[in-house]
């Protein structure tokens, strides 16, 4: 209402606005930046009703009424801008109330929003292609590259990295700040060495295997793991959960398989790059952080699920070749399952180990060789079980 043309001079003082008084709006033709103060009039032409836009100079423009739409999401308190559904860059900017009334009275559809171009089909195709490309990257390219690079890892560097990771895990699994204690009663250590030598027979590695038992009596963890550089750690609770030495031999074979397959190095490379990718992708919507950590965890454990199955297969072969029963692994898993239940549903996806039931089935199917001498003598087995006391 503030423009110089805001109020048309009324011929006579009257309460009601004169319906015949001229109304104006700013017209932009989309070709020049020139603002044209144009007179608006309703007209009925050959092809239905039109809004006649008459600039001060030049030819009048005709907008078909049923094609006129309001631009979407305009800030209130200003003029209203209109366009045509047929596209085109011409705009009508309407400030005066009389002019707005004129347009809205012509057709209520003019109050509807100007639609965008139809892009749905293309957007769906691009999105599907993008998701497929990301999946190929995360689940094929990066794991493949990690496996390739892991083979060229420098031995010294790998041992140093294993040292660091091992110390980190000892702190990570501890209750307080004090790292978990390494158990080492002389007799127990000797038994552990004997077991390692038996199980690792014929396995060729560029470094020595270093097997340790960690005292987790404060909070039993019931697990074993391998880090880079041939370091393997058992939690004491795992040894206590076993009923015979062959079960520990089977788990040791499984961890040795991880070492042979370069899994720790591969896993480090893979999860670092996967996490970097995801943190950038998710960073957009949320500001990153927690969510990307969670997704990264899911992917990282996804990697080692494959690795776990490969390690199970290697372990079965290795055990058979040294005359130990792979079925011990199945027995132990069965007992664990009876006691703790299976991991299923969503949590299964986040767990680093494939569902126990699958592994029991695989382990049983492996078949036992003719059993040779036991993994440890009863005396050695008793020593190993006492390694932490």
């Amino acid at each position, binding site marked *: 209402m503030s423009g110089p043309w805001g109020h048309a001079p009324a011929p006579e003082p009257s309460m009601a606005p004169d319906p015949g008084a001229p109304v104006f709006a700013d017209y*932009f033709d989309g070709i*020049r930046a020139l*603002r044209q103060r144009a007179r608006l009039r309703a007209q009925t032409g050959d092809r239905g009703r039109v809004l006649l836009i008459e600039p001060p100079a030049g030819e009048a423009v005709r907008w078909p009424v049923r094609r006129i739409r309001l631009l979407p*999401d305009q800030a209130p308190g200003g003029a209203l801008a209109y366009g045509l559904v047929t596209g085109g860059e011409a705009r009508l900017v309407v400030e005066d109330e009389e002019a707005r009334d004129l347009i809205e009275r012509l057709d209520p559809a003019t109050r509807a929003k100007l639609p965008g171009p139809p892009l749905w089909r293309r957007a769906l195709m691009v999105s599907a292609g993008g998701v497929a490309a990301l999946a190929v990257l995360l689940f094929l390219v990066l794991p493949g*590259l990690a496996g390739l690079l892991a083979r060229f890892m420098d031995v010294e560097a790998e041992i140093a990295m294993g040292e660091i990771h091992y110390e980190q895990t000892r702190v990570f699994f501890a209750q307080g700040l004090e790292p978990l204690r390494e158990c080492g009663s002389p007799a127990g250590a000797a038994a552990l060495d004997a077991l390692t030598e038996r199980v690792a027979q014929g396995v060729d590695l560029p470094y020595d295997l270093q097997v340790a038992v960690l005292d987790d009596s404060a909070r039993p963890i019931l697990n074993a793991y391998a880090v880079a550089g041939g370091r393997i750690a058992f939690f004491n609770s795992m040894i206590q959960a076993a009923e015979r030495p062959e079960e520990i031999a089977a788990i040791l074979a499984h961890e040795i398989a991880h070492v042979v397959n370069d899994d720790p190095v591969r896993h480090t490379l893979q999860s670092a790059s996967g996490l970097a990718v995801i943190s950038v992708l998710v960073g957009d919507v*949320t500001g990153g952080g927690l969510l990307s950590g969670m997704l990264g965890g899911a992917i990282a454990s996804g990697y080692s699920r494959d690795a776990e199955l490969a390690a199970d297969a290697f372990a079965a072969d290795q055990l058979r070749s040294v005359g130990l029963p792979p079925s011990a692994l199945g027995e132990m898993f069965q007992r664990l399952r009876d006691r703790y239940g299976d991991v299923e549903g969503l949590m299964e996806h986040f767990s680093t180990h494939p569902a126990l039931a699958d592994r029991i089935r695989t382990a049983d199917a492996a078949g036992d060789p003719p059993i040779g001498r036991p993994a440890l003598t009863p005396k050695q087995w008793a020593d190993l079980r006492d390694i932490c006391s």
Partner: protein
Amino acid sequence: MSSGTALDRMSAEVVGSKGALFALVFKTTALTVATLGIYSFWARTRTRRWLWSSLRVGGSPFEYVGQPLEKLMGFVIAAVIVAVYLGLIVMVLIFASLNLFGGPGPGTAAAFGLLLPVYWFAQYRGLRYLLNHTRWRGISFSMTPGAWRYSGLATLWTLLSILSLGLLWPVRQQQLWRFRARNTYYGDDHFRLTIPARRLVPPFLPALAGIWGLAATTYIVGGMEREDYAWLYLLFGPLAVFGWVHWKTVSFRLLASSLAFAGAAGLTVRPATGRVIGIHTGGWLAVGLVLVVALIAALFAFGFLAVSALPQIENIEELDPIWFVLGGLLFYLTFFLGRSALRLVFVTYPLIRHVGQGLEVRGAAEVNAVRKGESSHMHDADGFANLFDMGSGI
């Protein structure tokens, strides 16, 4: 040069209200949360449309013509490109770092350092997309391609700024602005930056003094273990903060006011440091307040729900864990999206209004003579900028 007649000048105004903007972002943020982020492309588009239309120069509103689906596709394209680049680079660098340094740290740092050129690339492409989709008086702005050259320029001047201990930072700003201005078109004619770099040095000195002071204090207190000098932080900390806001405000005023268009057209802006600090302080206080109130309300609602639903949920452990993950995700999205939405209402919009109120354009006659120029389609839209969350929300 410019004819100073009132007829040749166009003043600007920013219409709308915080309330109306809040109503819009509340709606779009709720939809974004409900769709787990997918609606964000629509949310961004709608708030931009609103903000653009709120700015009126010479009585004519700006118009934002970007499309949500275009942004979605751009985001996907940019995401794939950056993911491939980052994934491979991180892997190779971490491998090298493990072998050379025995740890992944240096490799990770190098990888993110190598992301910086991509960041500047994204900045230019994002700006280019915005300009290509900004119209005024039915005529589109545009920007010529040049993201890699811009990225190279930014890398070069950033290195020079670091080597000169920050002294060349104002020159860097001037160089980047000049590059962007020269490549920016309105219709068929382009902008120029007329300010010489040396005029930007004085307003930067307080910030520089503050930053040098902080570095020196850290060296004295940390390196020389003279903790009795820790009070220097109280001197240089505020100086650095105030100096930085002062520099941002004054450099923006000088740079933007020196933009010339076509023959003699140009613009003037008059942001004030005190006002900018006031808007930031008040704005962030308001954001915090609204978030706290929302959190309390949510806790009450949750408590009520828990009490009324408890008899049905006999055993919480039997509940599918997907519900917990979903609940956590929703809370997380609500908090972060809520924060950037509120920032838009209480900080960004007031800043736009402050700058807009002092904006003046000279050369109405030359603007009238502008004709439609070329503006090209960009397949990646502002996907790269979106990926780096530039301007979060705008």
